[in-house]
């Protein structure tokens, strides 16, 4: 049996984490292939629905990352995002949507090594949790059921 390769989507801001991930590349630090990045201008732009969509489309894990507090290119987008995440995380947790599958982090443009570490630890953690079958069952309900 081949090892489970989790699908992980990373929602990152352009100014810190995206640039930090660029630095990971420039520094040739290796990390797992499982994570693919979507670039946003700011964590403030990241709609919580997109995270939910990612699970709905089969993501096993999610990374959300942006500028450290006080470092936001737009001064306060990350502060807004943080409040939103606090609320969103609480709601998901209540609903039994596995919040361990969403890793939030602050990775600055200078933290190339941290980005690699965030990716690798997230991949390891999701590998341990296994495929997100609970959610997949819900998402693919129509495919499977006879619809009565």
């Amino acid at each position, binding site marked *: 049996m081949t090892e489970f390769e989790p699908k992980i989507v990373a929602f990152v801001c352009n100014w810190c984490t995206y640039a930090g991930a660029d630095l990971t590349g420039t520094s040739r630090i290796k990390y797992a292939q499982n994570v693919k990045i979507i670039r946003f201008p700011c964590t403030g732009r990241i709609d919580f629905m997109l995270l939910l969509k990612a699970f709905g*489309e089969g993501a096993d894990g999610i990374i959300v990352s942006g500028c450290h507090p006080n470092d936001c290119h737009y001064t306060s987008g990350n502060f807004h995002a943080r409040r939103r995440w606090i609320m969103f995380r609480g709601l998901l947790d209540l609903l039994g949507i596995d919040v361990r599958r969403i890793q939030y982090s602050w990775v600055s443009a200078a933290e190339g090594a941290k980005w690699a570490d965030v990716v690798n630890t997230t991949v390891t953690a999701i590998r341990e949790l296994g495929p997100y079958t609970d959610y997949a069952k819900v998402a693919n309900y*129509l495919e499977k059921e*006879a*619809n*009565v």
Partner: protein
Amino acid sequence: MQIDNYLIRQTSLEKLFNNLIGNGKTVFAPQASEKRILFEKVKAFSEITDNYLVTTNAAKSVVFPRTEKLFSYKKTKETTEITDASTEAVPEVVLWGTRPCDAAAFIPLTDTFNGDYPDILYNNRRGKVYLLSFSCATCDEYCFCTSVNGSPGNTAGSDILFTKLSTGDYLAEVITEKGKKLVAENQTLFEAAPEEEKEPNLAKVKTYFNQDEIQAKLQNLFENPVWDEKSRACLGCGSCAFVCPVCSCFDIQDEKHGSKGTRLRCWDSCGFSLFTLHTSGHNPRETQGARWRQRILHKFLYMPDKSKVAGCVGCGRCSRVCPADINILETVTSI
């Protein structure tokens, strides 16, 4: 068709149920939970409640699911491969515990799905449904089946109608071939018809109006303040339509996942402002009043005009669930 009468013992009902399950049928029956009684899939007789007036939801979803796959597709740059939905996997379904109004609702529902062309998916599902109804011994102020040509002991639509007698046993009226088939499969449970009359065991449902008179009055009532007045509190949700056993409006939705996708038929409601919204921004039914009028006219004028059967069976579900306490009976009687 000749209706055959039998007696079935109270104790035999469970046996009948078990036989149905044993024959591989899926049984939907009223199930009680904290705030609602719903038609739900049941596995054991004990899950069924007999302490209910009508269920909150209508039984229509077994023939007209609230979300139904029509087909799925897969695209490449050059080709599109379409797979039609099939009802083959749909099991035979027994609706256990429908009321006469519920059963009667299948008549206009089937009409609708066989208007311009027969709806294969609907008809396939309908063909697999057995309706084992139970007459009403009680009613409430929302019931008005008798005003729309129904009754608490009406046999129309059901395959078998059970009426509880004073002894606690049931009169079983077997109405259709399907019903007869079921009786044949369970012959030992059905005994000779009882002596007791059916009528005294039925609820007394007040007659408020006459469907034919209303139909005539509505011909000239398109412009009337009653629509706005009676719908003023309407919040514009779709609960009335979704619990209605006759309402059959639907919306077509595509769900796309990359190069694959499915086309779905989903329940819709004329109470929604979006229902008639044009792309241009114009909405021919701009207010809740206009939408309420549509609902009443459709049920009490257009449908009987077209197919001789009203679009309302007087079950009263819509009025019971309405969060703004809008009452269909009140509107119709005020006309």
